[in-house]
């Protein structure tokens, strides 16, 4: 064994790589369980890919056969029901884990310098995930699959000039049809592997800037501990707890996240009374519906997803550590979380009565939170510093200001020298 490893090591940096990036990888010792969700998301992706590949062995991406082939999987294939329910529940679990991962990032300000690229690659991952989930949802070819795809592809009609052509190009047909199903299947199979590649970028960035931590201050070397065995055991324990909850849903509530309507085969001539997207799209769907104009709604919905990427610019407070030392930011965070939950509720219900107004208000609040953030962050910073910060924070801020000033001076000098 030793010989084999040394043979490899002479040709490939196996031992040193594992040491540097895994076993001895320095990790802040004060990470809480909120830092578990990254590795957990990786595990869920692996579950989705494995179950997905096995489902693809039995699934038929043909409008005439798709629905029956899913029932074939559920009834006839050995443990097909298990694999299918693992996959459908896995989609829900994936979004749950990712939303918690994002919430942690927002709460602790982990998107801030120098982790902007991690945050942005994360945003790309979220978009890819949404696309994958959306396309996967068409595959069972039930009523909700069909009409969900019909409605969402129709949104592209809002694109000026090209809209109608774009819809037809996306569908490969005048309505969602066999061509749409087949291409969605092909892409649903492909995109997860692109996700894996982007995760690699995400991880390279992580291992370059290292994990953020609850204090928001980069720790001294002595406060970092090797990843193994501390965080391997912690991540595995977190994984076990996750699997308990996941298994509960797989085995006891597998249909909780599948609309009853989706057990009716797709019928292009009859729209379900009430179309709802999967729960993870509900807040964005509510924003779409709250804007009375189609183009405006599409733009608002797109911005509502993309706006997270602007967080490093919107939040320019010099106070480190996200919500930890910043009462206003913390309050804003909770307002935002509650607002998203309200939007989710509104999105799940038919747009009637007072819910319409709640939808307007919650949409306005959603964007309002982002709009107010730059001003709030500055005011809060001034107020906190006037009130007096803990000395180590103040020292940190001052040293950062100094560094920034030095960088400016150096840059100016270099410019002058070039002239």
């Amino acid at each position: 064994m030793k010989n084999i490893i040394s043979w490899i090591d002479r040709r490939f940096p196996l031992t040193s790589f594992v040491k540097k990036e895994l076993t001895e990888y320095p990790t802040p010792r004060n990470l809480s369980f909120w830092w578990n969700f990254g590795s957990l998301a990786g595990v869920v992706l692996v579950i989705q890919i494995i179950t997905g590949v096995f489902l693809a062995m039995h699934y038929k991406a043909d409008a005439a056969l798709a629905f029956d082939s899913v029932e074939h999987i559920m009834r006839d294939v050995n443990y097909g029901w298990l694999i299918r329910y693992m996959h459908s529940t896995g989609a829900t679990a994936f979004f749950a884990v990712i939303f918690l991962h994002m919430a942690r990032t927002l709460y602790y300000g982990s998107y801030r310098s120098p982790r902007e690229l991690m945050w942005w690659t994360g945003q790309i991952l979220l978009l890819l995930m949404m696309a994958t989930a959306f396309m996967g949802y068409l595959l069972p070819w039930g009523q909700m699959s069909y009409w969900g795809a019909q409605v969402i592809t129709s949104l592209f009609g809002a694109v000026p000039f090209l809209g109608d052509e774009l819809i037809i190009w996306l569908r490969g047909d005048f309505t969602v049809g066999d061509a749409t199903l087949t291409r969605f299947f092909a892409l649903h199979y492909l995109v997860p592997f692109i996700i894996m590649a982007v995760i690699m970028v995400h991880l390279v960035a992580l291992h370059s800037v290292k994990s953020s931590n609850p204090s928001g201050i980069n720790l001294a070397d002595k406060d970092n501990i090797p990843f193994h065995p501390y965080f391997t055991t912690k991540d595995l324990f977190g994984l076990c707890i996750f699997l308990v909850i996941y298994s509960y849903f797989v085995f006891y509530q597998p249909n909780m996240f599948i609309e009853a309507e989706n057990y009716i085969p797709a019928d292009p001539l009859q729209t379900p009374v009430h179309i709802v997207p999967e729960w993870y799209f509900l807040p964005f769907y509510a924003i779409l519906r709250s804007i009375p104009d189609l183009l405006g709604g599409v733009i608002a919905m797109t911005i509502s997803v993309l706006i997270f990427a602007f967080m490093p610019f919107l939040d320019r407070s010099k106070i480190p550590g996200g919500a930890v030392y910043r009462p206003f930011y913390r309050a804003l965070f909770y307002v935002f979380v509650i607002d998203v939950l309200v939007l989710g509720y509104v999105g799940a219900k038919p747009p009637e009565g007072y819910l319409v107004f709640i939808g307007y208000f919650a949409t306005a609040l959603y964007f309002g939170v982002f709009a107010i953030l730059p001003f709030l962050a500055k005011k809060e910073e001034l107020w906190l510093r006037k009130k007096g910060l803990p000395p180590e924070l103040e020292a940190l801020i001052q040293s950062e200001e100094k560094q920034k000033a030095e960088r400016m001076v150096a840059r100016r000098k270099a410019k002058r020298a070039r002239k």
Partner: protein
Amino acid sequence: MKNKKGLLLLLGVVLYSTQICASSNVSLLDGYEVSVEQDNLKKGATIYYNLCRLCHSLKYIKYQHLLDIGFSESEVNTLRQGKLMNKAIVSTSTPENAMKMFGMVPPDLSIMAKARKQGPEYIYSLMLSYVENSEGVYENQIFNGIKMPDVFSYSIAQGEQEKQAIQKDVADVASFLTWASDPHATERKSMGLGVIAYLVVLSGLMYLVMRRVWRRLE
């Protein structure tokens, strides 16, 4: 402090999961529950076969599947009347006839119990919501304009005893259709109990391992 939190979390999850696993029966109205007992499923299947099958198919249920709910081989042979074991149980009326009679093909019932919100309860209450209006025409209070007649004759049932007998029959049919929509449900739940029990044990072990590793830092 951190460890205590973890332990509490674990305990909470264990309690929660065992409690939920214990109560997994779907209730119908009038005190009935969706049954997984073979007696009820068999009774429901028989009623389906003699009554519902006149119009409705079960395209995902084959004759051989009846063996899983307690029919003997010879009983199935009688039911299938020379059709192959691996053929789906289909309606005795043709789609063309149904179109002539009802203007539509009655829906397949294989996954009906999953294709409606609270499906089993929906099926149960739909069958018992027929009333005779003042003009002597039957109506359904849940499904306005339903084409299906009151096949269980609940609207003209006389007396409590007869009503209860019909309720029981309909509960059995609802149970049978629930089984038909998800034939692996019983297997799924019993497997789930094992999987969750295993994962709880593994979580406990993993917690001990983690705690010991982290104690080195204190």
